[in-house]
């Protein structure tokens, strides 16, 4: 017989219509599934009572797949076919990962769209690997809740770009899950804390997980969550602390190039030692030495702090930036919520307490808090809660915009705009008679297109021919509640339209999101200079075009040969400079533009006069009065 759960007053479902929904925290290191059972959110354990499912997938030669603890336990035996931290690869190209300097023990191969992991069972994409983890969690939830799920809320780091979000959705679909919504992890944590504690105010969510760091500034009031600002580092997490310990241990014993098995074993032991240091002053690491006897190392808390202090520091910079973005000082923060297993490390807690000037909140399990919040959100979205429940505001993590002349990024939706959002801006043509326009959709904070992430290209055709600058093209950017983007362009006079829903190509050539925000800060001056150069180039090209048109029309009639030669020289000099794409050419470019301007001043005046004469000749005074 089916087992019943207690419902909210008036909300008990008809038989066979239970709307079972779960929240899933798909983590880099560990994943969890939670659901609201009889009114309260709880993490669903597996048959052995374990809450965490290691996000580890092992592929066997016969096509079988093992996930979780079983896969993790055998990781050192079969390192090439056992994939962990696949979330880092989600929606990424091989170039992105190599540029990020990540070393993985398994073989990565490039493939169109997204990289693959080469295993005995064939090349597996991160989407397939993520799907295995999600499928395991779905089966666990269905066995526990006693029925099929109507859907799931899956959390993603606030930093995930469109490609990574889409890849996560695809993984869910592959795992047989209907995604009710993607939710930013810190927002989920806030839901868990905000509802359970009912405390209002501005909070910071400091989330140091296995592979990602996120900081979010959230405002909780009257049960409404508003994300004021987000920031972080997509390539910083507990894994990096593990690697520091591994590097330290290898240096201590002079271990050169260990076998993949030994490296996996060492990595696992270093992780255990790191975790032990959260409650103990020192821990022992037994370092495997290949054919030689293993060596025991003692890792003290002081050493741990010394070798990881810069990693902790790296989290504080985005934290301070997010505060600035929100227009707040550390004093304005009512509390700091810790999320992620890595926040158990005492040096992290101490650094957070120092940065925000207060002790962080830790009353919910930092490993579970995101999944619990996601479960609460899933419960609402599945229709199991009353109408008067909370509403959720989220923000976009990176600015969205398009390419303008000179390879510059024009931002349409600034970062941290609340979702859903729609913004429109008018653009015009650059050349006379231009009938088509290419719209290059971009994501990022930098000034130059080449430093931003390319999301899509659309072309608008059928613009009526007009002089440059006369056409009015309205470009609308819309981002839905999942953070997915659609862009449309419409020519105002004739109404021709083009649009695209950004289903982005999975991060082939793009710089890692991780560095993007930081770069926009550290390279602000360089960007400004480049922007000025580009603008000078656009101005120069416009002048060149205009002068050439004028010469063709009136050059013979109005210019003496020496004058014409002088203009041609200035024209040529400027044209030369434009060919050389040198970032340092700003001054030269400006003076050459000025030179051409000066050389054509007389010519322009004569053209003006000639134009006026043409307009006036053959008219009587009374006709002229009508004309004027």
């Amino acid at each position: 017989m089916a087992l019943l759960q207690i419902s909210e007053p008036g909300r008990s479902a008809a038989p066979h219509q239970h709307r079972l929904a779960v929240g899933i925290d798909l983590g880099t290191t560990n994943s969890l599934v939670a659901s609201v059972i009889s009114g309260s959110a709880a993490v669903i354990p597996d048959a052995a009572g374990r809450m965490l499912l290691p996000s580890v997938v092992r592929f066997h030669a016969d096509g079988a797949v093992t996930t979780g603890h079983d896969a993790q336990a055998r990781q050192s035996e079969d390192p090439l076919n056992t994939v962990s931290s696949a979330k880092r690869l989600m929606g990424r190209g091989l170039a992105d990962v190599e540029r990020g300097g990540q070393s993985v023990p398994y073989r990565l191969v490039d493939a169109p769209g997204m990289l693959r992991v080469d295993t005995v069972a064939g090349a597996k994409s991160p989407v397939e690997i993520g799907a295995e983890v999600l499928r395991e969690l779905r089966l666990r939830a269905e066995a526990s809740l006693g029925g099929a799920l109507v859907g799931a809320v899956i959390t993603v780091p606030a930093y995930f770009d469109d490609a990574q979000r889409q890849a996560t959705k695809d993984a869910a679909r592959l795992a047989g899950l209907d995604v009710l919504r993607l939710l930013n992890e810190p927002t989920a944590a806030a839901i868990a804390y905000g509802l359970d504690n009912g405390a209002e105010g501005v909070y910071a969510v400091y989330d140091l997980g296995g592979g990602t760091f996120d900081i979010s500034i959230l405002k909780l009031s009257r049960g409404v969550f508003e994300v004021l600002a987000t920031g972080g580092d997509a390539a910083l997490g507990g894994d990096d602390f593990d690697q520091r310990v591994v590097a330290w241990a290898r240096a201590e014993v002079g271990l050169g190039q260990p076998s993949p098995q030994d490296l996996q074993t060492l990595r696992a032991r270093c992780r255990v030692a790191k975790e032990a240091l959260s409650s103990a002053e020192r821990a022992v690491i037994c370092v495997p030495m290949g054919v030689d006897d293993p060596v025991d190392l003692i890792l003290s808390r002081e050493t741990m702090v010394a070798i990881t202090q810069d990693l902790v520091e790296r989290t504080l910079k985005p934290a301070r930036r997010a505060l600035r973005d929100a227009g707040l000082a550390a004093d304005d923060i009512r509390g700091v919520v810790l999320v992620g297993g890595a926040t158990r490390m005492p040096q992290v807690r101490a650094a957070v307490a120092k940065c925000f000037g207060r002790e962080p909140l830790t009353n919910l399990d930092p490993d579970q808090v995101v999944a619990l919040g996601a479960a609460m959100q899933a419960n609402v979205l599945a229709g199991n809660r009353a109408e008067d429940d909370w509403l959720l505001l989220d923000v976009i993590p990176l600015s969205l915009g398009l390419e303008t002349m000179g390879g510059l990024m024009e931002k349409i939706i600034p970062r941290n705009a609340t979702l859903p959002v729609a913004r429109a801006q008018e653009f015009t043509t650059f050349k006379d008679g231009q009938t088509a326009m290419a719209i290059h959709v971009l994501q990022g904070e930098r000034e130059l297109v080449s430093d931003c992430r390319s999301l899509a290209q659309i072309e608008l055709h059928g613009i009526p021919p007009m002089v440059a600058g006369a056409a009015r093209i309205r470009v609308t950017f819309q981002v839905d509640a999942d953070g997915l983007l659609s862009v449309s362009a419409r020519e105002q006079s004739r109404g021709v339209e083009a649009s695209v829903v950004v289903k982005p190509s999975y991060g082939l050539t793009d710089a890692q999101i991780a560095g993007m925000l930081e770069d926009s800060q550290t390279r602000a001056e360089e960007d400004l200079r480049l922007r000025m150069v580009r603008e000078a180039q656009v101005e120069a090209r416009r002048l060149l075009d205009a002068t050439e048109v004028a010469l063709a029309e009136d050059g013979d009639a109005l210019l003496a040969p020496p004058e014409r030669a002088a203009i041609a020289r200035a024209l040529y000099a400027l044209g030369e400079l434009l060919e050389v794409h040198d970032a340092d050419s700003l001054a030269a470019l400006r003076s050459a533009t000025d030179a051409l301007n000066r050389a054509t001043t007389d010519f322009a005046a004569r053209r003006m006069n000639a134009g006026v004469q043409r307009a006036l000749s053959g008219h009587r005074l009374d006709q002229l009065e009508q004309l004027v």
Partner: protein
Amino acid sequence: MAVTLSETAARRVNAFLAKRGKGVGLRLAVKTSGCSGMAYALEFVDEEDADDLRFESHGVTVLVDRKSHVYLDGTELDFVREGLNEGFKFHNPNVKDQCGCGESFTV
């Protein structure tokens, strides 16, 4: 006769009520739907109805509307664990037949 809770069930209900932070008790009801005619409903109660029948069982206030009581008289609500799944189970002496899954029944 009355409607009662097993000790395990009462403990769980009290725990759920405490976590929820509000509510005066538990409502047991019968609705006319489901594949065998009737279906059970189990809800938290925020406000008592004047017509409700009121039972106390192991410290939990159990409310049953008069119409449902006809079908539920003598029922004991239990809390059981079956594999990974755990939840409440009705032991209802009035039931003549129930559908395979047990979510609905006939009297």
